């Protein structure tokens, strides 16, 4: 990929949000004395929503923020289009400081460059599906022909053709959220903000909509910030995941990193129940080939099954089922490592193989 394609589209630097009447003083106290959250609550009667959050999202990336309710994730996402003003810190969109924009520029940013989907759908009950979808064009005063064309495209993209002149309360929950999605992509924004978009839907519909969203996302290549309280969803959708707890971003990493190297017990608890089969790659569990050769025989190596370093455990299991040999990991014809049965089983369990360096008993 070219360099420009990997630039940061969203960059948040040191975002603090303190709610309460005396949030300014509380912020001063945090800066000068480093007050803890409890101290802030006791001394200033203020609640810390987001605590020193910094992250950036690259062009085309899907960035998931995962946390339980009350962890501050919905507050954090609202800083990106400045629905909420930070107490401290700044947000940059494609290099522009959002917090320094005037009202007009901010509205233009919201209408043209950022689309947002809400957990509560937040459709306007007095407007038809079509008029909901093109709301952002309407507030910018775009001509009727353009609105009609855009509405038709966006509605087709979410598979709702034929429902244009219905009202939101005539649609099922899943369909309503499709309208929400169509509304968000209608203005063809650079950025999509998804605030728990599928959480209110039942599991089957949720899965369907995730699929729709991922297909759309692959096609449109939008930079996305996706909020969820469901780790499975985060892993399914996200290129990178940030885990949020009590207003703090505990860990940011790829799904594989989060699952294999949890930063603390909190994250470890979360990922404990997650299946590693489609997340962990051979490169992570293999033993380097040189090391292996020193301790173990490599007779009949030609007959060993071969995998690539980024093959997931699922694939390795398929290979292992057909043979008694260990699996060779080859990167561009060069043997880089070996995955023994033991390492594979431990990998599936999500534990390190403590004896990997010692001789493997067959």
């Amino acid at each position, binding site marked *: 990929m070219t360099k420009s394609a990997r630039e940061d589209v969203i960059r948040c630097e040191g975002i603090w949000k303190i709610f309460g009447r005396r949030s300014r003083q509380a912020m001063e106290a945090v800066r000068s004395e480093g007050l803890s959250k409890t101290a802030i609550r006791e001394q200033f009667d203020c609640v810390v929503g987001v605590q020193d959050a910094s992250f950036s999202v690259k062009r085309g990336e899907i960035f998931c923020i995962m946390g339980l309710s009350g962890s501050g994730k919905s507050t954090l996402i609202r800083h990106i289009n400045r629905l909420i003003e930070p107490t401290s810190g700044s947000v940059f969109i494609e290099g522009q400081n959002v917090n320094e924009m005037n009202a007009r520029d901010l509205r233009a940013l919201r209408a043209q460059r950022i689309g*947002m989907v809400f957990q509560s759908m937040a459709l306007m009950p007095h407007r038809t599906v079509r008029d909901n979808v093109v709301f952002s064009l309407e*507030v*910018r005063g775009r001509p009727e022909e353009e609105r009609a064309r855009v509405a038709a495209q966006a509605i087709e993209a979410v598979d709702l053709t034929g429902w244009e002149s219905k009202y939101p309360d005539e649609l099922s929950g899943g369909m309503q959220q499709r309208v929400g999605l169509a509304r968000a992509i209608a203005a063809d924004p650079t950025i999509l903000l998804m605030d728990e978009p599928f959480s209110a839907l039942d599991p089957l519909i949720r899965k369907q909509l995730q699929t729709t969203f991922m297909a759309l996302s692959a096609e449109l290549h939008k930079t996305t910030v996706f909020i969820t309280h469901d780790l499975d969803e985060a892993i399914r959708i996200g290129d990178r995941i940030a885990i949020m707890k009590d207003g703090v971003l505990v860990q940011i990493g790829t799904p594989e990193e989060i699952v294999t190297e949890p930063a603390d017990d909190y994250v470890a608890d979360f990922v404990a129940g997650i299946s590693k089969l489609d997340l962990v790659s051979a490169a992570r569990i293999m033993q380097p080939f040189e090391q292996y050769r020193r301790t173990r025989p490599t007779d009949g190596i030609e007959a060993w099954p071969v995998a690539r370093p980024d093959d997931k455990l699922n694939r390795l299991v398929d290979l292992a089922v057909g043979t008694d040999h260990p699996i060779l990991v080859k990167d561009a014809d060069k043997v880089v490592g070996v995955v023994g049965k033991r390492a594979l089983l431990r990998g599936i369990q999500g534990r390190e193989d403590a004896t990997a360096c010692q001789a493997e008993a067959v």
Partner: protein
Amino acid sequence: MAGETTFSLLDPFRSIDLDIDGRTDGIKQWAIANRTALQPIKSFFDGLIGWIENLMQSIPPTVMLLLIVLVAWQAAGGRVALVVAVALVALGLLSPDAWSLAMTTLAIVNAAVALCVIIGLPLGVLAGKSDRFEAAVRPFLDTMQTIPAFVYLVPVVMLLGIGNVSGVIVTIIFALPPLVRLTSLGIRSVNPGVVEAARAFGATPRQILFKVELPLATPTILAGLNQTIMLSLSMVVIASMISVKGLGNEVLRAMGRLDAGKAIVGGLGIVILAIVLDRVTQGLGRSGRARNHRHWWQEGPVGLVMRLFHKSA
């Protein structure tokens, strides 16, 4: 006299006289001395009300009846139109001049309600947007609704004289509060998520008000309008004390002569007008779902005419 009473801790109020009534009377005297300044405004509104009344009186009763029934059909559907038709025929049959008296009353009520909307809607929107403004207007609204009408009847007459303009003003004082209160309530109870979405898609505060908040608050605002109309009608007898003609005047005169028959004609007339206006304005407030998501021009007499045109086209 107050000055002669010695101060007692147990009954302190008897010995203190701030002379509030005297001072207020002084303000009144000053206002009356300068009342010519109000004359142009008064004559403007007098002309306006007179024009409305003339218009309503000049339309033949049968035509007027049909017009009201058609409006009711359009606004509230066929069933309500039928009720309205029966009610209006009953009104006309009450006595030979009942219809003309009712039109006079309707003209006054119309003028008062129109002014209530012009004043009350913006006030209600402001109150819905600002807690401070709401806190500031609330005592005034409470006063307007509870202070006995006779208290402000006298000063209003002294300032503007008897007649329709004074009648409309005392009616507005009494009938305005529910419209302001319910407009504020309607704006406040709009789903904040929808307003947030409108903000997130770049709407200006003005667009949010006109495209989101007011449309969503409409049912509540119409309930307020309905209350305002009902309260306006309930003021017609009191207004008739300052020489406002119409059904209220019939009731007042009948009371003076202990003429129960005449009182019933006037009283029933007011009740029938109230029923008609209530049903029509309540019909306006039906939600989209209750109307099967059809637009107003797709139903009622207008819908009928439109369909005829479409067929012939």
